């Protein structure tokens, strides 16, 4: 019976798969002798000259869970840095520290030092509202407001008082849509609800909405995971263009995407920043064993 034999073969493969999956665990147990700290110490070039954001010894706890463990990293100006790693490794948590979105989670506690342009963003006198105007964010699922396309983009400038007149607001909205590569597609449908656009258009609308506030850094949390390959390609092109004016930190599950859009790549594992370096180096010649396992597809 063909089906039965196929299944038998599958079982055989599965057993060897199991061994491979356990590789990660084995690394942990074998390095236990050296001590956890050293095993997970970041390798690669975590620091750069004149960073826009610098993170030192960042720890995040959700209640009793230690989600981010002693991460230090710099984000350079006008670079795209991608965060990769298996699910639950803390990469999303990490970039949500950079605009203090973790503040909205009551049990979250962020320690360590994060500086934006040299100023600590967790200092008492820092207003998270102002910070989020400087560090914009694009989320995993396109989340336009249930308002018109125009109102979606105009909302940020409006609450921050960026436009003094309707004409100025129009300028900001149109140029933001244009920079997000969306203007030609939606110029005749500005009054239609943003939620009526296609998924890829919605995500570009969210990007337009973010850049309308003119931030210094844009955080992107898996911006393409809900999109088809064509929409993904458009967003990737857009990221390349946006790099001229903004620094971008992007979380992605797709290593190909990280390789295509980013100049530097950071690999996270179980809350540790394992390795960071030039993207091509991380993918072709990783230093750390865990990074190698991940980029060669053995874990993750």
């Amino acid at each position: 019976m063909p089906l039965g034999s196929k299944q038998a073969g599958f079982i055989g493969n599965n057993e060897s798969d199991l061994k491979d999956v356990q590789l990660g665990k084995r690394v942990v147990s074998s390095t236990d002798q050296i001590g956890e700290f050293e095993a997970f110490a970041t390798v690669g070039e975590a620091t750069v000259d004149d960073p826009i954001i610098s993170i030192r010894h960042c720890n995040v706890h959700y209640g009793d869970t230690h989600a981010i463990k002693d991460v230090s990293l710099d984000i350079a100006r006008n670079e795209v840095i991608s965060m990769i790693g298996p699910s639950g490794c803390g990469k999303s948590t990490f970039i949500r520290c950079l605009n203090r979105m973790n503040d909205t989670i009551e049990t979250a506690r962020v320690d360590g030092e994060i500086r934006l342009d040299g100023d600590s963003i967790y200092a008492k006198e820092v207003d998270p509202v102002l910070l989020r105007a400087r560090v914009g964010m694009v989320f995993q699922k396109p989340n336009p407001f249930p308002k018109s396309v125009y109102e979606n983009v105009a909302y940020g400038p409006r609450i921050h008082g960026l436009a003094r007149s309707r004409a100025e607001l129009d300028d900001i909205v149109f140029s933001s849509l244009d920079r997000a590569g969306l203007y030609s597609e939606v110029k005749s449908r500005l009054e239609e609800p943003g939620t009526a656009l296609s998924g890829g258009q919605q995500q570009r609308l969210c990007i337009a909405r973010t850049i309308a506030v003119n931030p210094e850094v844009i955080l992107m949390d898996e911006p393409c995971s809900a999109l088809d390959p064509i929409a993904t390609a458009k967003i990737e092109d857009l990221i390349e263009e946006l790099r001229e004016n903004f620094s971008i930190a992007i979380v992605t599950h797709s290593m190909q995407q990280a390789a295509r859009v980013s100049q530097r790549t950071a690999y996270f594992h179980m809350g540790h920043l394992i390795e960071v370096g030039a993207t091509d180096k991380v993918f072709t010649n990783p230093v750390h064993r865990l990074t190698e396992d991940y980029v060669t597809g053995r874990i993750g």
Partner: protein
Amino acid sequence: MTDSVRKPIANLDETRALVTASLQGRYRRERIFQAAGVVAVLLSVGFVLFFFTSIVGKGYSAFSQTYIKLDIYFDPAVIDPRGTRAVEDLSGANYAALVKDALQGLFPKVTGRSSTRELRRIISNGAAYALQDMTVADPRLIGSRRSLWVLADDEIDMYMKGNVDVELDSDRRKVSDEQIAWVEQLREDERIELRFNSTFFTAGDSRDPELSGIWAAAKGSLFMLLICMGLAFPLGVAAAIYLEEFAPRNRWVDLIEVNINNLAAVPSIVFGLLGLSVFINFLGLPRSAPLVGGLVLALMTLPTVIIASRSAITAVPPSIREAALGLGASRVQTVSHHVLPLALPGMLTGAILGLARALGETAPLLMIGMVAFIVEAPNTPLDPSSALPVQIYLWADSPERAFVERTSAAILVLLGFLLVMNASAVWLRTKFERRW
């Protein structure tokens, strides 16, 4: 993984046979489940239909009322013997005598004390008041002779509507054989007919069924609803927003939440007792006032509004909040610009359904003295007043036959109110609902 739980794959044909064998039972259970559902729906529809036909069948006749045409002579000697035309003199006069004279003119053959009294009884006491009002409003009527339709007594009305069993012995029914003969004579002369009962919609309560109406009770209910809505909606929405969006998660907030949920299930009469002790005994607000009623109903509705508003807020996708916060909106801006507009239809629906429940509430109103006999419709929320359900309760208790149809008619009006409120809830939801 030493102890393996893995077994060899079962034979395919065997598996198929097992699945096929189980199919029949599964389909049978599905059919039984569907049949049970259909039976449940049919039963409930049947009960609702029965309820409505019963109420409508009993109540519709209250919307018409028997009137008798009398030739009234506005006798100056009776109304204004001193000839002053002063309002005090006009309103103190014996208008019943005018009615009596007119009846006597119609039936000259009726003599004797008991017969004339019987004859007078076919006309409502309200007829004299109506003549008085007419005369005071227009004194020029005095001395003239007019053909007027005046209210018949409620028992005559019942006879006209076919609710009197003429087969019964004369002493076991309220309409005597003599009266029946007169009514039949009036009918031949086309001096008696059923007309639209406007009194029912304009009058307050009365001992005489033909003079009673629901206006005082409806106005009281309206005042209470306005007060209840004005208090419970903003308070409930504000509380819900605070609890959902701003309150820290700790033991105290949990305690408050549990108590709000429990309060929604507290019997309404308890809220009546609370209102009695707090608003009337402690704060000294007047008894029987719609203000107190509205306050009590607001307290009663508040938990419902809070719960409905909270679930409406929770239903707003968190991604919308994240989007707004990520753009640098403050929490208040996030709530007022994005969460509230999206949650509002749900909040309104919950509030209106809570209000509809409050509208039909009787028990707490009994505790704060709204069970009084109210003739005059209240002009302010501080005037003594009744409420629609209380009025229904009072009429249902009255011995007169004519109050039976009025009870059903008042229930119809209350149901109409509820229907309008529920329809507006649906309308608001569809109008303001936005999709995302």
